[in-house]
């Protein structure tokens, strides 16, 4: 034994002393002092997400196209729920008892501690009585958010819709939490970051009676929500609605562009739907109805995803290429034998031979076969000739996405030489083999947007601004930031356009279109197209722009299974141009307007199909 052995008592004493001190302290903390228990119950944290109002969408005349209305989600934290009067709650929120039970079970399954939505998107008139009675339902609370409202009920596909964020997005983007909304399609998706703003969080302490007892940690962890930014679009909401009215009971698309700016004035895809259907508590029901409609596919934006043969409207491009390549002059004449022409017969009967202006006016197939052949044969080999031709066509914005904000935009199609090499064999094809291209048929598919853009290029005599829907973004302080867009110049000299434009003017003024499209005050230039459709009645296409010398609008109308372009597509374009430029329809054209609105091509198709 050593001399300091007694010190073990001191060391052990210090240790025991601390132990006893701790037990005494715990005794006061846990038993004598009751305040900590109250603190703890009061300490239940409630995290309320503050959803900023989503940005508004305006049209070119500052008219609101999309705004918000208030709605409320009834939330639930299963762990805090005490027995309550289910019947009363169901009556207040107008929900089946069965649905409520299911929602609570689902919430429990998700988490006992984290809030879940029990009843989403409750309207303001239900919210008021609910808020009064909420104290009776511990564990329930209300979270406010905003819902979209579309006053003009139009442009559904272009504007797109918002929906609950999916699991994959939650995993990849930590901004989003389960139950958040996100732009799913159209502009709502393209400008999600600008529109959504930034969420805020408010942490509050609530007591066992569901009453908010104050800010958690003095609000130091709260963040304020930042409002979404507004979009100012090039849409003309009135014209858009008018176009949708004209397209009633028709299947197809209309796109109009302001040539000088590239702003899209209207974008119609018919049949459409009321965008308000995809908002509120009926959303999921309506959504599945819309998605399941495989006949009309109302959610499809045919203006950008519909890929069609351009038909005769494409003859304008062939004419321009031939002029640029000097393979024909405006005065070169080619003969037409009408129905008996080879290799392509003419669909019209007219004087022969024809030069370019008449060729366009009469949409003479033999003439354009010769134009096309001249381009292909202008080079030493058909392959080289095709390449030259194809490069020009691509230059017009075809076979590529023209670059709007909408991510679902499609490229269309235009065969490469390799395609023909594979199909016919190398050097075993020539202008003759691919002659359908001369009249916009064959291995070429374009979207109505690309067709409208083509019209804009001709209106501009050789350039286009990337077509776009949104012109400017307005920050929450209502300061607008104009967006800039690329200008693309076409490699065809401006004077060539004048020849083609003369032809287009003749189309409107010297054919029977003078009764339906020609306007008194404005020179309209246009071109019809009738697109052979192996699956049914021909599609009707029409491109136009006006006024001739100071173009304000370039337009493409494409109507499926409508027969001749001149019958429906052209007059609809004519009415839209008139409405846009003159703000009204001349009285003598009211009958035409009425007839077009009443035309029901959908049900005709149905009948045909049945027969």
């Amino acid at each position, binding site marked *: 034994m050593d*001399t*300091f052995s007694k010190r073990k008592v*001191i060391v*052990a004493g210090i240790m025991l002393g601390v132990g006893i*001190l*701790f037990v005494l302290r715990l005794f006061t903390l846990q038993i004598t002092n009751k305040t900590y228990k109250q*603190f703890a119950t009061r*300490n239940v944290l409630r995290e309320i997400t503050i959803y900023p109002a989503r940005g508004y969408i305006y049209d070119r005349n500052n008219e609101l196209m999309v705004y918000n209305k208030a709605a409320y989600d009834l939330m639930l934290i299963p762990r805090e729920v005490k027995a309550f009067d289910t019947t009363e709650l169901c009556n207040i929120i107008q929900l089946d008892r069965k649905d409520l039970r299911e929602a609570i079970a689902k919430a429990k399954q998700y988490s006992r501690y984290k809030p879940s939505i029990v009843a989403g998107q409750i309207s303001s008139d239900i919210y008021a009585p609910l808020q009064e009675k909420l104290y009776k339902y511990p564990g329930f609370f209300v979270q406010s958010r905003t819902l979209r409202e579309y006053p003009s009920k139009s442009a559904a596909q272009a504007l797109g819709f918002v929906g609950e964020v999916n699991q994959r997005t939650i995993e990849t983007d930590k901004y989003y939490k389960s139950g958040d909304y996100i732009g799913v399609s159209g502009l709502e998706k393209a400008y999600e970051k600008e529109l959504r703003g930034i969420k805020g969080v408010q942490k509050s302490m609530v007591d066992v009676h569901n009453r908010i007892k104050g800010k958690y940690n003095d609000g130091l962890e709260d963040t304020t929500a930042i409002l979404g930014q507004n979009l100012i679009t090039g849409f003309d909401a009135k014209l858009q609605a008018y176009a949708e009215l004209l397209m009633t009971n028709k299947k197809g698309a209309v796109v109009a562009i302001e040539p000088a700016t590239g702003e899209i004035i209207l974008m119609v895809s018919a049949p459409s739907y009321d965008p308000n259907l995809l908002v509120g508590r009926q959303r999921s029901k309506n959504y599945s109805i819309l998605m399941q409609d495989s006949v009309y596919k109302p959610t499809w934006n045919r203006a950008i995803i519909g890929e069609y043969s351009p038909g005769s409207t494409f003859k304008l491009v062939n004419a321009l290429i031939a002029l640029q390549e000097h393979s024909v002059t405006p005065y070169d004449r080619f003969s037409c034998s009408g129905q008996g022409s080879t290799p392509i017969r003419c669909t019209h009967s007219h004087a022969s031979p024809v030069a370019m202006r008449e060729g366009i006016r009469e949409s003479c197939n033999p003439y354009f076969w010769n134009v096309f052949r001249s381009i292909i044969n202008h080079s030493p080999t058909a392959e080289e000739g095709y390449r030259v031709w194809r490069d020009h066509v691509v230059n017009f914005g075809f076979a590529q996405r023209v670059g709007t904000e909408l991510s679902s935009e499609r490229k269309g199609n235009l065969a490469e030489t390799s395609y023909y090499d594979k199909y016919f064999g190398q050097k075993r094809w020539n202008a003759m083999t691919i002659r359908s291209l001369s009249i916009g048929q064959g291995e070429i598919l374009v979207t109505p947007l690309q067709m409208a853009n083509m019209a804009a290029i001709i209106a501009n005599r050789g350039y286009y601004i990337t077509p776009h829907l949104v012109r400017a973004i307005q920050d929450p302080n209502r300061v607008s930031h104009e967006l800039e867009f690329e200008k693309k110049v076409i490699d065809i000299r401006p004077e060539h356009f004048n020849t083609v434009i003369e032809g287009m003017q003749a189309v409107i003024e010297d054919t029977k279109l003078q009764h339906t499209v020609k306007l008194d005050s404005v020179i309209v230039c246009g071109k019809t197209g009738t697109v052979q459709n192996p699956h049914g009645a021909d599609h009707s296409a029409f491109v136009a722009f006006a006024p001739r010398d100071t173009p304000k609008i370039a337009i493409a109308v494409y109507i499926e299974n409508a027969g001749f372009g001149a019958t429906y597509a052209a007059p609809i374009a004519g009415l839209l141009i008139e409405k846009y430029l003159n703000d009204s329809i001349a009285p003598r054209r009211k009958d035409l307007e009425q007839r077009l609105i009443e035309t029901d091509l959908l049900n005709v198709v149905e009948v045909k199909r049945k027969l």
Partner: protein
Amino acid sequence: MQKKTNVWNNVDWITISIYLAMMFIGWINIYAAVYNEEHKSIFDMTQQYGKQLMWIGAAIFIAVLMINTDSKFFVTFAFPIYIAIIFLLMLVPFIGTTINGAKSWIQFGGFLLQPSEFMKMGTSLALARYISSYNFKMHSWKSLLALAGILFVPVGLIFLQNDTGSAIVFGVFLLVLYREGLNGIVLFFSFLIALVFVLTMVLEPLPTILILTFAAFLINYLIRKKTKRNLIGMATFTSIFGILWLINYLAEGGVDPLYFVFAAAFISSLVFFLWAIMLHKRSLAILIGIYLGSVLFSVSVDYVFHNIMEQHQRDRINELLGIQSDLHGAGYHVNQSKIAIGSGGFFGKGFLQGTQTKFDFVPEQSTDFIFCTVGEEWGFLGSTLVIGLFMALLMRLIFLAERNRSKFSRVYGYCVATILFFHFAVNIGMTIGLAPVIGIPLPFFSYGGSSLWSFTLLLFVFVRLDASRFEQLSY
């Protein structure tokens, strides 16, 4: 083979039982603390509780390995082990991994080890080896210098790695040295200095001086029972302060009241010190001397902290005492921790029924603040049981240390006991608001493989040494 059976017959099963009980209780509390509904199984290896079970398995393996090691190994290799861990520590800045801002981890395969954790065992072995050597004399300069060397090399290295909490732990070896003969005054002053330092940093100097003043009067009263003179002293102190404060108030001087308290303390101390000298009251003079020294120390700590130190040095101290890391303002975490424990009541809320820890009111629920879960879910009963287990283990270790005839084993045993005690005292003290928020784990409870293994190693080397207490060791 015969030797092996002997070892298992002689190991202290009481220590081992307490050890296993602690790990088990720790494990189920980790489960409750980080309980995740999507991973309900306590064996779910993707969660902390599943992993902790794995760490526990490995810890038991380490324990068995230690018991099967020849006890002479630890004596013979005490210094080499110490030096090897020092080397590891020195390697950390080069090959270390940074976790939570401290570059103090080394990755071995899939495991992260913190050499500073293992340094505690290495230093214990080295201390035991040195103190048990024949030429050791506690108060010889040579021995003190060597002891200082053994302690300060690891402390310095750990301190340089920004792991101040682990460095502080080595201070507890003073208790071991005290047991081996170090003058008690050293212990007393070390404690006083640490106390005044912590009080000054956590409470600011003004309340610290007031506490010291009150303590001095109390001690004087307890020793000398002279109520009247105490009252005179208090009156002097208060009146000096009062007069100065009044002058300042009337003159609208705007001087910090700290100066008046300090002046009052200084002047009254001087007066009474002279008086004590004149009347030959030695104990009073010493008391006043210590009091005045503490006051001066408190004021100068505050001055050095605010006027001489660089910002990063201040950050280090704040972080160590949990002032800076407490982003929500001083005392917020401790307050939440106290609420969690306090709301447990006598019986607790029951297993998995705690709300405070689960709602993330309490930080680091599974590591440094694991005792909150014990307090909240198992109440006074459970927390007292845990404290009881620690007391039992510590007392048992002291008992085992004392029954060993080998000085090496005894010193090492004391090292183990005091290290565990320090962790226990600071960790639980922190959760109940009796110690500053120094982030060190609760042995055998807190989540984490590295700390569990190092504590296991530390303990079982001693269990092994104790098992061979009947063998004649050369030290």
